[in-house]
């Protein structure tokens, strides 16, 4: 207000805007060259922090039958969850394979017609053919139990949050936090309370899958037309009448999406829950991953994908269509007919396609014949990107790296992200996991760079060419319904168990959402602006660089943020196939009792790393950089 920008006298000489950051970078580089090797924090498997946590677990284990918290609360929760799982497990197994297929088909038909019904039946039957029927049923029971619990808690909470802005504000950060937590991080606390086994797996899956149930339900309720609500109130409806007659029916289809997302999240988590000895398909997958046995994990992986497709289509169809009560009797009849066949047909799945042998041979052949190409890629990335980066991050004094991160956060996001980063860095140092965190960070940076390079290019291509977009859309759709670890399969088949495998898997895992966000961001640039730029005589290149990309800035930053969060989750998961560092610490924490403390701490460190990266990139999205604000 005070000084109009146009009236201010032009400064005689002004440093270019990049001068200060460049000077700072130069100082950092010089400091690194001088101080390399000093002030590092080498990893120690027996750090006192780790032993303290291990002892805590021993203490908890020793006292879980005399502490009142466990005696009167935690143990009952555990019993309840275990009971629910056992109930579902026995009843699903009790239906027998014809019964279960019949019931799933009937549900699919009820929800979306005969196509959906057939698809559901075919998917389940394929699981049988792949030879993993028993494990599939266990997985279904596990998913069922955790989804039931998630919905029982999440839907009411979501409805409440949708109507109370205060609760929504309070829940927001908690849900944000839950969504950026990599899957691994949920496991250790569950083990501490519920021991290893199915109840802990169900609980971890439930916690992982509850955010969409709450968030999307709240959104659905929030979006209900306020006029309809007001009209209902103006006619003297009680709050309960308005809830059941206006809010819930109007929010129904979006709430269907909430259920769908909850199921999909649960499905991708159950595999990881196998690390803490939950039953199900995950056991084959984890065995296969750790033994580099693609043939063992392929049927289980396919089965998960097939179940995912069946459940996805059924729930999506259910949320889209009006419910047809006239179909219920037929559906019940179909389910009963299937169950009836159980007594006639053999109890075991009759015919299994043995795939392990040929698959493993194919993998070996692929490894042999493409070895030169894959090895060259692997070596090049390791030699020119990964090793130097890892070297710098681990050999620099820790405070120098911390300083650089802090400066980056401040420059991009402002004061608050910088404070968050400072807290996270301090906590990682205190957890005695600095070195492993830096190794993981190096992998994440390489993977993110590759993800963004590929994702943004494909996104731009898709936005500019309708044909290319039409070609890649179904691929992206399919990719986004696959659970995370499925991406490890091709990576493992191509590259064996190395650090690079994890990076490769995380790139193909994180690229689809990035492509989608970038493409949408560019497409959402208002057509009038594009038209105006065209009429001013812009070339396509000018249009891209001067109009579309700047206007899609928010979407691209969001894409970067998503890419980073997903990459971190996958890099950690990649520990199963030789990724090393934090992820490996977590896995060994579950498999060896003495390493529990390290695994627990590593889980926390992963979360801290995630928050740090998330805040840095989110800051960029929310506000202009500090320097620009100053000049305004």
């Amino acid at each position: 207000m005070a000084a109009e920008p146009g009236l201010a006298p032009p400064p005689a000489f002004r440093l270019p805007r990049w001068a200060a950051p460049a000077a700072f970078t130069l100082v950092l580089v010089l400091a690194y060259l001088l101080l390399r090797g000093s002030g590092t924090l080498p990893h120690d498997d027996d750090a006192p922090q780790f032993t303290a946590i291990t002892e805590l677990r021993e203490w908890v284990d020793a006292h879980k039958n005399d502490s009142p918290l466990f005696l009167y609360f935690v143990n009952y929760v555990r019993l309840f969850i275990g009971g629910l799982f056992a109930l579902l497990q026995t009843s699903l197994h009790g239906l027998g394979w014809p019964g279960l297929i019949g019931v799933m088909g009937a549900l699919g038909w009820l929800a979306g017609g005969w196509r959906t019904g057939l698809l559901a039946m075919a998917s389940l039957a394929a699981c049988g053919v792949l030879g993993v029927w028993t494990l599939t049923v266990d997985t279904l029971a596990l998913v069922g139990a955790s989804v039931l619990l998630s919905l029982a808690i999440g839907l009411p909470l979501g409805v409440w949050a949708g109507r109370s802005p205060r609760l929504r504000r309070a829940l927001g950060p908690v849900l944000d936090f839950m969504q950026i937590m990599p899957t691994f991080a949920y496991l250790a606390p569950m083990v501490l309370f519920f021991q290893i086994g199915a109840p802990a797996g169900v609980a971890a899956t439930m916690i992982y899958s509850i955010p969409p149930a709450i968030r999307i339900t709240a959104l659905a309720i929030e979006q209900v037309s306020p006029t309809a609500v007001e009209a209902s109130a103006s006619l003297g409806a009680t709050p309960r009448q308005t809830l059941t007659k206006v809010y819930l029916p109007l929010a129904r289809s979006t709430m269907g999406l909430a259920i769908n997302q909850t199921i999909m999240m649960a499905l991708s988590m159950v595999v990881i829950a196998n690390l803490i000895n939950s039953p199900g398909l995950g056991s084959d997958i984890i065995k296969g991953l750790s033994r580099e046995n693609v043939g063992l994990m392929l049927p289980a992986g396919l089965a998960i994908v097939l179940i995912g497709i069946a459940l996805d289509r059924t729930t999506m169809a259910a949320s889209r269509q009006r419910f047809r009560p006239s179909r219920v009797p037929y559906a019940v009849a179909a389910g009963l007919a299937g169950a009836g066949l159980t007594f006639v047909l053999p109890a075991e799945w009759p015919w299994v396609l043995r795939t392990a042998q040929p698959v493993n041979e194919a993998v070996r052949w692929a490894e042999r014949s493409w070895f030169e190409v894959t090895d060259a890629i692997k070596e090049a990335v390791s030699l020119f990107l990964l090793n130097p980066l890892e070297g710098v991050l681990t050999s620099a004094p820790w405070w120098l790296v911390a300083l650089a991160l802090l400066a980056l956060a401040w420059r991009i996001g402002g004061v608050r992200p910088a404070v968050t980063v400072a807290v996270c860095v301090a906590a990682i140092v205190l957890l005695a996991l600095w070195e492993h965190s830096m190794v993981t960070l190096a992998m994440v940076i390489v993977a993110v760079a590759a993800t963004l390079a590929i994702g943004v290019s494909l996104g731009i291509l898709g936005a500019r060419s309708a044909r290319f977009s039409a070609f890649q859309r179904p691929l992206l759709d399919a990719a986004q319904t696959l659970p995370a670890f499925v991406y490890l399969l091709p990576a493992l088949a191509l590259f064996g168990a190395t650090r690079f495998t994890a990076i490769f898997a995380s790139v193909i895992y994180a690229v689809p959402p990035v492509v989608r966000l970038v493409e949408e961001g560019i497409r959402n640039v208002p057509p009038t602006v594009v038209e105006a730029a065209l009429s001013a005589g812009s070339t396509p290149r000018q249009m891209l660089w001067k109009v579309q990309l700047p206007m899609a800035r928010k979407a691209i930053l969001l894409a970067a943020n998503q890419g980073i969060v997903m990459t971190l989750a996958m890099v950690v998961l990649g520990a199963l196939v030789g990724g090393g560092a934090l992820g490996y610490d977590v896995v060994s924490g579950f498999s060896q009792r003495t390493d529990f403390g390290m695994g627990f701490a590593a889980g926390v460190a992963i979360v801290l790393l995630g928050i740090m990266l998330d805040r840095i990139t989110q800051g960029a999205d929310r506000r202009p950089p500090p320097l620009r604000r100053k000049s305004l």
Partner: protein
Amino acid sequence: MRIGPESAGIEVKGLWKIFGPKAERVLTSDDRLLEPAALRERTGCTAAVRDVSFEVRPGEVFVVMGLSGSGKSTLVRCLTRLIEPTAGEIAIGGDDVLRATPAGLRELRRHRVSMVFQHFGLLPHRRVIDNVAYGLEVQGVAKAARHARAREILTLVGLDGHAGSYPDQLSGGMQQRVGLARALAVEPQVMLFDEPFSALDPLIRRDMQAEIIRLHREVGKTMVFITHDLAEALKLGERIAIMRDGSIVQLGTPEELVGAPADDYVADFVRDVPRSDVLSLRWICREPDEHDSMEGPPLPASTLIKDAVQVATATALPIRVTDGERLVGVVDRVDILAAMAPRQPVTA
């Protein structure tokens, strides 16, 4: 116009609605007298309704008119406490609304006052008939009875044969007829209309206005009608309250507003209204002087100016304006022409 047996009047005294934190404190301090912008600057509060008082007679059509942001929609929502007023008194049919218990308030909304909304507020997942019957449904009326009543009302608003449609299958005008039917179905004593036709096309709006006039003639309810359209206000309102920044700046019949605007704001509003369509001869007649012949034809003082044109063209003599037997004044051709000529714009 017929006054329905079931109509109730509304009395509003000293009504305030202040949005924002510490609304109560603003009300008790002198801040409440500040201009809207100054008030927001100083306290962060917005005074949407400021010390509004008016009475609506049973069976009357009372129009509240003002530009967007003048507080008229807030005012009408305060009447049944869809928005909780900050201070003041409201009585509907003699019952104190502000002191009503939640159950009492629901009773009022269920049986005595119903409302028609700008964006219809229909429930998209229900058929038209179930939308119309919604008010009866929340009252607990059995399905057969409420459907029968809903069918009757659908006939009344001209929607025969659409009972089974869903709202999104109807045009905007028809959707608002459903909204109207829903409000009528509960047989209220008072109907509130919150800019019901501003989302409709001009032609459909005209039809709907005619519909309201017809309905009012047939059922004779008390109606409070909110609009930002002056032509609509003049057409429907027996009395009109003009709001600005939360206060009523003038309240009167259409004639009074056009003939004697209270201030420049109202004058600016009514400037483009053809005076001859609204004003009666009473507003333009003058004392007869010695030149005037007293042989001209007589006309009642309440005759609209435009209706006097025909008489004036037939005679060169001044028209005698009478109120019953009494002579109020005279009007000649020049006076009528002057009244019909467009006026100079009001300059500040």
